[in-house]
């Protein structure tokens, strides 16, 4: 059994970098290399950004992050109790028609080894992502 952190964070843009620093401290302690730590920072920030942009019903809410640490991997779960969405809404980015938005989930999937999105309309969203220690896959 691994170690378990959880954080409850105010849904405000100014706190995403606090989450980034916490995640990078955990990843650093686990022995991830610099490039992997950067990947984890960006991926968790994308998930937090979505929780803040799309995942809140009112400004006073917090969202929650779980970190599961074991010898071989870091699992991060970002959970909000917001509007939720239907996962087949997600489109791949289209370079012929670049858009200002729509890159977040694509980036998370590119940087992490395993990503699972669970969303329930009206109930909320959870993005679970795993990064394995050791060489990049």
């Amino acid at each position, binding site marked *: 059994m691994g170690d378990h952190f959880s954080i409850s964070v105010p849904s405000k*843009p*100014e706190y*995403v*970098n606090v989450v*980034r620093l916490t995640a990078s401290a955990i990843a650093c302690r686990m022995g991830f290399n610099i*490039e992997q730590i*950067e990947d984890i*920072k*960006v991926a968790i*920030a*994308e998930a*937090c*950004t979505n929780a*803040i*942009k799309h995942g809140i019903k009112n400004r006073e809410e917090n969202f929650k992050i779980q970190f599961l640490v074991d010898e071989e991997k870091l699992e991060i779960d970002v959970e909000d109790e917001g509007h939720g969405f239907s996962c087949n809404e997600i489109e791949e*980015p289209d*370079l012929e028609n*670049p*858009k*200002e*938005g729509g*890159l*977040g989930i*694509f*980036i998370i999937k*590119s*940087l992490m080894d395993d990503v699972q999105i669970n969303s329930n309309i009206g109930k909320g969203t959870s993005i679970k992502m795993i990064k394995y220690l050791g060489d990049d896959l």
Partner: protein
Amino acid sequence: MSIHIQTNYNKDENIWIVDIKGEIDIYTANKVKEDLNKMLDEQMADFKINCLELTYIDSTGLGVLIGILKRLKKEEKNINIVNPKPNISKLFHITGLDKIFVIEGE
């Protein structure tokens, strides 16, 4: 605010030189967007963005750059991303944005 933008218009080459220091994320993106748009209101010109001291960017920041690029492309201008750190150029590559921005000094 952990972002610092310094701008310089080079009249001879009709180009904006922009130094961005710090992090572009959901917290700072609006300021970056406003600053860059204001420059275009003042003078439509190519952009050279010096990223030597840009330590972090994510989709929110890329979105801002895409928005500016779209405005520039209408006037056949472009954005040069100069000296991005490895973590930053990685994001341009995985998103394919390296094909629509000009990236130098990787």
